[in-house]
């Protein structure tokens, strides 16, 4: 087979020498043209070193590039906006925190205000109750003054109903004292004894006493009423069991009180004219408040004229 092929080449060489030369020349020229084209394309940038065609942007590619550029710009803008929004969110969160703190503070203040309103409400109710009590006392004073005036105006009626009128008058005083049921206050008036210079004697009393109230004659020394008579000053013994107070501690006494308040019945300040002592007893110790003592003083002044006129008419006053 190879011999045949060699034989063919020999025949071909003998008969086609010119054709081979022509083929070589043609091939060489083609190579040179190709190299020229290659160099031209490389120099003009139409192909790269390896002879590959450089890509020229097509219309579609340009659109895509523009879109990409647009997207990139939008992305940058969005990123900037995101940063701004994050800052804004942070600021808002800070503001929210601040407002929450402010709200919490305001809530505390509001709670305090609500509590203060409740306290004020209670204070008002307390004040109103006291005002109510004062206006009631005013009415009792008015009725006392009315009864005193009626007694002075109608002497005969007074003489006939003396005990009853005084009981009524002194009950007005008792009714102004608070916690009547607990204190069980009782009032008695003593005047100078007509026969014993060292003693006082019964003159009048409020309701609630037994008949024995008329028997007791307090000594001028050693009794609460006697002390008020001597000093011509209000004498309050908040606890008669306390030895420091001047009080007549009688043996086998049936006393049912711990407090005693004695008020001199007197007129004038510089040269007081004392005519008796008004005493109020109360069941518990420390039975009387300052306002009650002041009311008792007022009532003592109110009934003074009636007692004075009565004693004067009976010749028991100088």
């Amino acid at each position, binding site marked *: 087979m190879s011999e045949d092929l060699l034989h063919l080449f020999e025949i071909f060489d003998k008969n086609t020498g010119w054709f081979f030369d022509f083929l070589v020349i043609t091939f060489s020229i083609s190579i040179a043209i190709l190299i020229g084209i290659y160099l031209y394309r490389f120099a003009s940038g139409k192909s790269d070193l390896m002879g590959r065609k450089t890509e020229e942007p097509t219309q579609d590619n340009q659109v895509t590039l523009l879109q990409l550029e647009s997207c990139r710009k939008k992305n940058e803008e969005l990123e900037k906006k995101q940063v701004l929004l994050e800052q804004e969110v942070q600021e808002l969160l800070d503001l929210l925190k601040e407002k929450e703190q402010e709200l919490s503070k305001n*809530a505390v203040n*509001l*709670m305090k205000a*609500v509590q203060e*309103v409740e306290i004020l*409400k209670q204070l*008002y109710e307390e004040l*109103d109750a006291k*005002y*109510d*009590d004062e*206006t*009631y006392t*005013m*009415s*009792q004073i*008015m*009725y006392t003054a*009315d*009864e005193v005036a*009626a007694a002075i105006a109608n002497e005969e009626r007074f003489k006939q109903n003396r005990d009853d009128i005084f009981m*009524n008058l002194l*009950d007005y005083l008792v*009714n102004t004292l608070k916690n*009547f*049921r607990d204190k069980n206050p009782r009032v008695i008036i003593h005047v100078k004894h007509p026969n014993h210079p060292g003693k006082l004697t019964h003159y009048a009393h409020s*309701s609630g006493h037994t008949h024995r109230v008329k028997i007791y004659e307090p000594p001028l020394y050693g009794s609460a009423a006697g002390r008020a008579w001597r000093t011509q000053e209000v004498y309050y013994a908040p606890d008669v069991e306390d030895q420091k107070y001047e009080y007549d501690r009688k043996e086998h006494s049936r006393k049912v009180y711990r407090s005693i308040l004695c008020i001199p019945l007197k007129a004038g300040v510089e040269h007081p004219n004392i005519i008796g002592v008004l005493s109020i007893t109360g069941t518990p110790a420390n039975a009387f408040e300052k306002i009650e003592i002041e009311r008792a003083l007022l009532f003592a002044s109110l009934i003074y004229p009636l007692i004075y006129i009565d004693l004067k008419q009976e010749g028991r006053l100088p």
Partner: protein
Amino acid sequence: MGWFRTLPPEERKRLNKLYREGSISRKQFMQKMKNGFFDHERLAVKEKFTRLIQKRDWEEEPEF
């Protein structure tokens, strides 16, 4: 001027008796004895106060 009417002595005695017997409370006794005397201004202020408190109570309680 019709409100200047004091209680007659008999009525005062009757009220006093009722109070001492415990048939009426001190509050009732006080109101009946006063019979409106010396109480106009107090009641007027109290009415104002009650109106104010009622107005406040109608509003919703604050929530915390």
